[in-house]
């Protein structure tokens, strides 16, 4: 393809999508890029064989997740759209850390301070305010329902 491999924009897309744009892979392929900036139409067998593509090219971008969130909103699914917005934020977080964060949210796995730090890290390191809000909400509920880890070293019980 050889089109401009510009880095993907970091701002939310300005395109206004409606249900008629779905599926994007067929109706709006020009909107879809890989994390390395290639167009989705560049994901061809020739490119695979020549070694131009890496596994990184087969990942979804935060911009695409924002587009899917628009489609979810346009089709009356605000919760699904919210999930896609959290997902868009999470694309930047490495696999292992995503799993570690998930484990930290399990019952009695983290102290209140631990969850507060996690929320701060989501915001400061990954610009993930929507995910951070979910973690802060969890911390508040865990506190009320006795689901926080005890700050002291835990003994066998």
């Amino acid at each position: 393809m050889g089109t401009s491999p510009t880095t993907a924009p970091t701002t939310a897309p300005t395109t206004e999508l409606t249900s008629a744009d779905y599926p994007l892979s067929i109706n709006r392929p020009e909107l879809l890029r890989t994390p390395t900036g290639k167009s989705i139409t560049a994901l061809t067998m020739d490119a695979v064989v020549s070694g131009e593509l890496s596994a990184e090219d087969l990942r979804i971008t935060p911009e695409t997740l924002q587009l899917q969130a628009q489609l979810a909103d346009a089709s009356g699914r605000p919760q699904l759209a919210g999930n896609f917005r959290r997902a868009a934020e999470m694309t930047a977080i490495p696999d292992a850390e995503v799993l570690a964060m998930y484990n930290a949210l399990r019952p009695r796995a983290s102290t209140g301070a631990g969850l507060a730090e996690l929320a701060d890290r989501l915001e400061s390191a990954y610009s993930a305010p929507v995910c951070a809000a979910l973690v802060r909400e969890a911390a508040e509920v865990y506190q009320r329902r006795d689901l926080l880890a005890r700050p002291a070293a835990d003994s066998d019980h």
Partner: protein
Amino acid sequence: MTSTAPRQSTGHRQSLRTEILEARPVNLDGFVEEWPEKGLVAMESAFDPAPSVRVAGGQIVELDGKLRDDFDFMDTFIANHAIDVASAEESNAIPSAEIARMLINPSVSRNAVLAVTRGLTPAKVLDVVKLMNVVEIMQGMQKMRARRTPANQGHSTSARDNPIQVAADAAEGALRGFAELETTLGVLRYAPLVAIALQVGGQVGRGGVLTQCALEEATELELGMRGITAYAETISIYGTESVFIDGDDTPWSKAFLAAAYASRGIKMRFTSGTGSEVQMGNAEGKSMLYLEIRCVLMAKGAGVQGLQNGSISCIGVPGAVPGGLRAVAAENLVASMVDLECASGNDQSFSHSAMRRTARAMPQLLPGTDFVCSGYSSVPNADNMFAGSNFDTEDFDDWNTIQRDFQVDGGLRHVREDEILQAREKAARALQAVFAHLDLPPITDDEVVAATYANSSNDYPFRDVLSDLKGAQSVMDRGITGLDLVKGLESSGFHDVAENLLTVLRQRVSGDLLQTSAVLTADFVPLSAINDPNDYAGPGTGYRLEGERWEQLKKLRHVTSSTNPETEVG
């Protein structure tokens, strides 16, 4: 001793008829009396809360008789995320009978129903579906299913975790029509090889089949991230706080996990079902259906696109109490009526009685659901590593005949023997090539021949399990991805299979499969509730089995030709 031993005779003389009835398979099934105080009751319990809702300051402050300070974490999550605050008071004020009528009235559109259900509390939803008999529940399902076109999902596993078997059975399953194929393992360390086999075999049978491998979260997510699997569904949720905690999760941890999957472009649904809480001894005195409705709303609040429900692995519990299968049909309806994809059970061994097994599936098969079975065993049940399904390979012809009898689409079709043999052989050959390309333990020509003609894992030569397990580990250590499978297929001459797989992998870049009820057609068109919305509006509308698809489903193994009755068509 086996669990299927006949019952002990009572000692006194029985009539000959009683002896015959005692020997009927249905009497090997277990039935118990209800115990509502402990939650051993399907859906009619005096101990379930009465519906109520109150909104103040932009949030729900009272839910089903509880004030916000007394909410457990399920109440809190549902109040904060699932229920539409703006319409909650108004929707809950509508008499339950009116909402139930909306569900079955063809002149009320699906969207008009959703405008009401988005604001309902769990107890209100229960109050509505409690008014419906099983035919009305089916009518509701016919309209509320999210995707217009119904589909089916298969289980492709092996009692020996034999990857060649999984590849060949995946190819046959895909050819027969399964839109999704799921596998799991006896020996977990085999997972990478079996998941590869499923992915390759599935794309041989029919391009666009989506695959998954049920494992613990971390490995399941990793295989998905690498493009060795395409979706996930074994993300369990529960209807009481105590059982949720026993499962070492909370609604917030699961919601986080849901976003994690989406962030990697992987389709995902949660799993729940009636009976799980009472089975674990912590139903908190609530009916099975009330607790399942809490699960459905929790899933909705998490923003996950769909849910696998219909009791699933606990089916023996609702199956044993009065009205249990009505409750199971109702839980599927509830998932659909809050706009979630519903993969509707029928996926676990359920009864010794063939008649009961068939009856159990009617409330899903007749109206159609997004996936009628969330695991029809596309291997013999003895090879089913999900502990057996309600239907297996021996039932293929019965299933096809029932589809033809009632003119309903259960997602499968009859396929001619020569096509099946060709697909099975090609899948085994393709996997042989991929294993060679990746320097994995070789697949012999004898194994390919065995795969072509086999029924079960017993029909294959033994593999060197230790070598396979080393190979499986090396797949993880070397960071093999779906792209490596594409390269292996392409370089060994399986160009069409390689293209199919690449097209599936490309889908995750687009995110189209993340939308509600999405599947891929054989032409790789994403079909979801957005571009294939259920438009049922009464007789003559909605999904109809007609045209080319109906011609396919008219075919069976033996149909006498009307042109020449001395021959069969097919």
